[in-house]
């Protein structure tokens, strides 16, 4: 059984007017500017550290049928499948039933959504008594209930992971703004002041998108704005099809694996067959392992997002805007019941890890046909750390996610210590955690030398983040990956380093599993060491000056430099 996000999904109404090239250029840039402003204001007016400092949120502008026209380039994982998540709402309440003040909301992994923490809200934009567009935002909410603050690693099903908001239509004045939906959500989350504040930031960003789009319609007329939306999607589609035609037809295979499901040692293998045929591309995940009992299942929308991000990054120039038009030449399939298209009610909280393996499998397949457009395996994981504490003032939940080294590429070394390709979260300043949390303190944060896989181009370095726990009864939950299976090198490049999480307690070092939950005590020191990226091309081909520079800057130790690159460096140790 296959589900296909196929071309007929995007049944286009042919609205191509003979739009003046100038009007088109002006309106399309304005549409992109609207999405960007929505994203900026969502983050700036939010409350939780995961949205305000980590910027784990996204925004987009949709046409009247719910196709993404323009997006704020924030989190690739959020962006690819927003229209799928939108359509799940339409299935519950047709667009024609919407009135001004209504909104769609959805976080249901089995109703088109990703994981529960990502709540999508869509607001219809009315002009001239009709819907002309939708403003949509998503934020990763700090805590939406569930068995454990921030995340529940041992959840056996999606119900244990938090509050499900199925795809539905509500009315802002009646249901939010102190109304029953707001109160229902507030009663089911652990830090309502921040979570509800973040919801308000989403609504406000949608209101800004609405105001700006309405202004645009007044200025240029509704038909011109609609035509520009349609043309903007055609534009991306045209560019992408042209790029696809330049690639030799054929089917290419790639695979990668998540370490394990946290219960046993079995790798969770993701297989992708990528077929390029003229100006179309299809990805089939047949052969991928079955769904698992813990939270590493990847709901369909997440699989779609990860696949699209891999294709977008490898096959188009970054200048081509991402929108629904870009998706038209792509079809994606996966057997139901696999890790990447699970049956209800499998838990999905850590879905980004299998999503990364989809990304890797597609890039590995493409490496065979466009070697100059892909990179080696990197940290490519989201290391999620939730450190929480229940005190007399209620719950304090700190949630942050960390990346590591990028895989090296055909032209450049991998980026050091940065969030991985499907995500784009920033770190929380230590001075902010110092101000906001009393149950832990960050005591170290830095690069990890010798973690980047050697190669003609070196893999990016991993990072460490070290916490001193200040209170007994501190709750720690995490999911990480690349703990057992290291990031792969490409074309003769070596692999990058593995991830690990350790607790130093009473002079002993306790190694955690990649998916774990533990109680911490005052005095414990918790450290995340993330993976370095894999190398690209044989280490022997590396420019000796770059090796010397790496050693001089301490990215590579002198001894490792001699050993890994097989040469004596001239640099002063």
């Amino acid at each position, binding site marked *: 059984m296959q589900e296909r996000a196929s071309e007929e999904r995007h049944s286009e109404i042919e609205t191509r007017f003979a739009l003046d090239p100038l009007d088109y250029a002006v309106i399309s840039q304005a549409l992109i*500017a609207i999405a960007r402003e929505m994203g900026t204001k969502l983050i*700036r007016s939010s*409350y939780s550290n995961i949205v305000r400092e980590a910027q784990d949120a996204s925004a987009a502008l949709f046409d009247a049928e719910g196709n993404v026209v323009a997006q704020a380039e924030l989190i690739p994982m959020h962006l690819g499948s927003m229209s799928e998540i939108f359509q799940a709402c339409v299935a519950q309440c047709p667009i024609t039933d919407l009135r001004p003040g209504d909104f769609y909301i959805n976080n249901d992994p089995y109703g088109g959504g990703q994981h529960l923490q990502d709540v999508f809200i869509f607001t219809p934009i009315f002009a001239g008594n009709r819907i002309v567009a939708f403003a949509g935002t998503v934020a990763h909410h700090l805590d939406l209930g569930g068995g454990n603050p921030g995340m529940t690693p041992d959840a056996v099903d999606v119900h244990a992971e938090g509050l499900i908001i199925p795809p539905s239509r509500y009315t802002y004045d009646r249901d939010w703004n102190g109304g029953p939906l707001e109160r229902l959500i507030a009663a089911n989350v652990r830090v309502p002041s921040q979570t509800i*504040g973040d919801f308000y930031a989403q609504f406000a960003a949608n209101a800004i998108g609405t105001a700006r789009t309405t202004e645009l319609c007044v200025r240029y007329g509704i038909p011109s704005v609609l035509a520009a939306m349609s043309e903007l999607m055609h534009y991306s589609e045209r560019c992408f099809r042209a790029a696809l035609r330049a690639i030799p037809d054929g089917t290419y295979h790639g695979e990668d694996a998540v370490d394990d499901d946290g219960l046993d040692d079995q790798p969770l293998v993701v297989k992708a067959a990528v077929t390029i045929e003229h100006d179309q591309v299809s990805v089939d995940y047949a052969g991928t392992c079955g769904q698992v009992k813990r939270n590493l299942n990847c709901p369909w929308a997440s699989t779609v997002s990860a696949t699209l*991000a891999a294709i977008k*990054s490898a096959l188009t120039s970054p*200048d081509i805007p991402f929108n629904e038009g870009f998706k038209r030449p792509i079809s994606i399939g996966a057997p139901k019941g696999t890790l990447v298209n699970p049956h209800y009610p499998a838990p999905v909280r850590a879905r980004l890890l299998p999503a990364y393996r989809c990304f890797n499998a597609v890039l590995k397949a493409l490496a065979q046909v466009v070697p100059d457009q892909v990179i080696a395996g990197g940290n490519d994981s989201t290391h999620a750390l939730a450190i929480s504490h229940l005190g007399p003032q209620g719950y304090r939940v700190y949630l942050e996610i960390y990346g590591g080294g990028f895989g090296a590429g*055909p032209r450049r070394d991998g980026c050091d210590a*940065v969030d991985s390709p499907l995500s784009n979260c920033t770190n929380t300043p230590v001075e902010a955690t110092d101000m906001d949390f009393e149950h832990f303190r960050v005591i170290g944060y830095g690069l990890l030398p010798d973690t980047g896989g050697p190669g003609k181009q070196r893999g990016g370095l991993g990072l460490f983040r070290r916490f001193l726990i200040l209170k007994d009864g501190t709750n720690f939950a995490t999911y990480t990956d690349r703990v057992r299976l290291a990031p792969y090198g490409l074309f003769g490049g070596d692999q990058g380093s593995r991830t690990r999480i350790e607790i130093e307690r009473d002079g002993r070092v306790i190694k955690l599993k990649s998916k774990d939950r533990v109680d911490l005590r005052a005095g414990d020191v918790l450290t995340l060491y993330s993976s370095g990226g894999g190398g690209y091309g044989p280490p022997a081909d590396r420019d000796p000056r770059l090796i010397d520079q790496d050693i001089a800057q301490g990215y590579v130790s002198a001894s490792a430099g001699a050993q890994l690159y097989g040469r004596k460096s001239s640099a002063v140790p």
Partner: protein
Amino acid sequence: MRVGIEVGGTFTDLVAIGPQGIHVTKVPSVPSAPDEGAFNALVASGIPIASIEDLAHGSTVATNAVLERKGFPTAFVTTKGFRDILALQRHGRSRIYDLEYQKPAPVVARSASFEVCERILADGAIETPLDVADVLARLVPALAHGSFEAVAICLLNSFVNPAHEKSLRDLLIRSLPNLHVTISSDITREFREFERASTTTLSAYIQPVIDRYISRFRRRLDAEGFRGRFSVMQSNGGRLPAEAMRANAISALLSGPAAGVVGAMRQAGRSGFKNLVTLDIGGTSTDVCVVTDGTPQLTQEFQLDGLPIRIPLLDINTIGAGGGSIVWVDEGGMLRVGPRSAGADPGPACYVRGGIEPTLTDAHVVRGTVRPEAFLGGRMRIDAEAAARALEPIAKHFGLTLEAAADSAIALANANIVRAIQLISTERGRDPRDYVLVPYGGAGPLHAAKVAEELGISTIVVPPAAGIISAYGLIASDFVLFESMTHRVVADDSAAQVLRDVFAVMRSRALERAAASGLRSDLVFTLTAEMRFVGQAFEVPVPFSEAELESLDASEVRQRFGDAHQRVYFFGGEAAKPIEFVSFRLGVVAPLESLPLLADADEAGSQPRPISLFDSKAWRDAHLLHRAAMSGQAFTAGPALIEDSTSTLYVPAGWMAQLDANHSTILERR
């Protein structure tokens, strides 16, 4: 005699205002030695250096040192455990689909980054005292070995308690007296360690550059018998005595565009306009800024080449749209203008210096809004045929006539400029319709009217000598300093008292610095509180004047915040949620004794004559006149071109131009 010398990328402009009237000089810049260009301008102007009472200078020397990474060897010192903060940055990427993304390169290398044992907590408490023995045993020798010129120190939570930074600075100065030491708490007192470290490092990095530059400039002035006041422009829109810049090097970054805003603001202010959108279009870029009630908008969030800077500077938005911006068709078939630029070399195709790609200037030549014989007062040879040849492929692609293609390119550039203005007006909660547009720079007046139409602006104020207004802005600027401080406290019933207490503390700190910087004593203070709902991500600025602080009450503070938040974020005006102060900024202004008055430079004007130009899809009959030929009360109805030696003003159909008593040309929409 007051003299302003502004060094730009292509030209160095000089404006002199004295009893003999106004004198304007333009000479080519010397990019390798900006001061060379400045003295060339002085020589060309024929002004005796000994007769200059007030010399104000603006230069790109600091900005270029950063962009080209040509500062002096600089070290970075921070709290143990955090040596890599400059390399780690904020862990995000600015291009999300770029697989070979690299972070912006810091100005200090990892091998020049060091740690000291110490830790201060969020409330200022000392958790680990500074390990002095360790500093002397390890850090001092390492710095001594590294042949560093400068060191930047940024310790965690020093914005609350700078004690360790100060002790460390004193230790280093005692041990290594030749080292320039910059501590973060002297540069910015705001939280978020990476941004503060970045700002401090940039400041330390350019300090020796500024220091040497000013010393060299000063020596040469002294040798020529200069006895006046020598001051340097800052990015915050004020200047400082040159010697004081040595302790404020960071504020010299991006000072060029700030001078233009001040010049425009002063000149428009004389005609009574206080709400302005300034529009500076030059050869490679466009700079826009919003001035509300006579005060330019400030921002504390700025990036130079991807490196954050957290000091108050004018909220100037720069986009790649200028005369040299290239007109092109992208791979999806969309018309584009910029951001790539032919710059001054090879320059637009019509310069015939080897440029073959069409630029905005070529488009103006083709549609008749720039006359080859009048470009830059006739100083530059322009080939109209070359402009037409360059634009031909664009016209062919869209099936348009040459002039229609040129017109579309200009209209698209206007749209890009409109969006740049919306970003700092509409998006900051300011409605451009409440403002007048003040265009300057070589091409600002050419584009102003069409930009105004798009924004709904109905009045345009064109300053005299619009092409050199930045140089005028230098001598028209006040002397300005800023103090900042993070002090997070809930704004409850005592909010007004908090403001008064904070003001008192910051004022005394500012008075000390002002005295040390050689500012006169009749100072004006403005206090801006950065406020937010408790726990929210970012703050909105809420300004308070010194005079109103005494009578202010808590409900008024709350009201002001609510209004400001509502304007920007579309909510919060009515919310009953608790609010807090996060940080404060004190502006200290030593006003100019008197404003130098700008007027048209003395130029001979030719008689008006008819021309034809292409605009908005049709050829139109228009008047051509020289600015000097505009007489007192007469209106000039568009379409018309009004030229002077520094720029060309385009008055489209539907607009009327009239000279006002202060030598500005006022355009009104009919």
